């Protein structure tokens, strides 16, 4: 084995990553070549230095607190979004069913069904608001207020 062949194998030899034959050849070369033996010792020292090196310490408590806070926030967002959406959907269905029932009983006109919920005057004047949309007074989970919900055509018009 010549120096060029040995040098490209030194790092792998250091890690015990060479096949037995190769490792034997490298060892024999190092026994006879002082320059390559010195290179090998250098690599050994580099590895020892990296192994022994201590890195900058971290404030574990602060780090963990931040991670756990983020994980908690992440988990809460995931958990809350599903039920919140389900509750909102259930509320929309319940209110829509109530509107339909009122209409079927004939005691409430199309206009009065819509007017039975409190409509802020500013919103009531929005053109087309009653065409396919219902104003629902509901608690959205984020803030109690008036929500505009897209309703199927005919639900409000009574078709």
């Amino acid at each position, binding site marked *: 084995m010549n120096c060029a062949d040995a040098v*490209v194998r030194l*790092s*792998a030899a250091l*890690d015990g990553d060479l096949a037995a034959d190769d490792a034997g050849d490298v060892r024999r070369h190092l026994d006879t070549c002082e320059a390559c033996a010195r290179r090998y010792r250098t690599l050994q020292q580099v590895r020892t230095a*990296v192994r022994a*090196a201590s890195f900058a310490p971290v404030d574990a408590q602060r780090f963990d607190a931040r991670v756990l806070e983020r994980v908690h926030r992440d988990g809460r967002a995931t958990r809350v979004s599903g039920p919140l959406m389900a509750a909102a959907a259930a509320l929309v269905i319940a209110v829509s069913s109530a509107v339909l029932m009122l209409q079927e009983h004939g005691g409430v006109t199309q206009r009065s069904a819509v007017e039975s919920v409190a409509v802020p005057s500013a919103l009531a004047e929005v053109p087309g608001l009653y065409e396919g949309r219902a104003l629902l007074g509901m608690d959205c989970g984020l803030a109690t207020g008036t929500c505009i919900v897209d309703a199927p055509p005919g639900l409000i018009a009574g078709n």
Partner: protein
Amino acid sequence: MAADDPDAPLLRAHVRGDPQAFGDLLDRYRSRILHLVRCRVGAGSLWVEDVAQDVFVQVHRKAGTFEGRSTVKTWLYAVAINVCRDHQRHQRRATQAAPVPVDSVEPLADLTDTSLDPLEQLEQQERDRLVRDALDRLSPAHRTVLYMRDHEDMSYEQIADALAVPVGTVRSRLHNARAALADALATRVRGSQP
């Protein structure tokens, strides 16, 4: 899966909802992940701790997807490497810098004929500083592979899995990283001598 993986029960317990398990994972891997992130994004980066936190948030999110085809440690390091890559991608986009190909197969560099004997005479503290300084001068890819192999004692296969590169790339990269570190250390040792 490695049946004797000491971290696997911990990850499974976390997935089952054991609140203590995630804390234990943090305890075991906090420093290691921080060092790995430092290697990857550079010790001088302002974002080391943030990126390391991102890693654990991702571990929390993805714990259920762990299939046990590697050890938890290798899987965790792969998550960390991906988070670091995302971070570096964002940074590059922000700075409009040219991309640095970190995962290509590299030709083998020449090992310089350098003796580090003077290192043996230095105190541990000084040695640590020199090693850290020298590591800082290497490329992120070289720092990472040196850290994984020489500090974390990971096998070539584990490193290849974590970095998603062939084993041959790990071998050549380690060779080049050690050569570069030997150069950097020799330069710094010579510079620190009176």
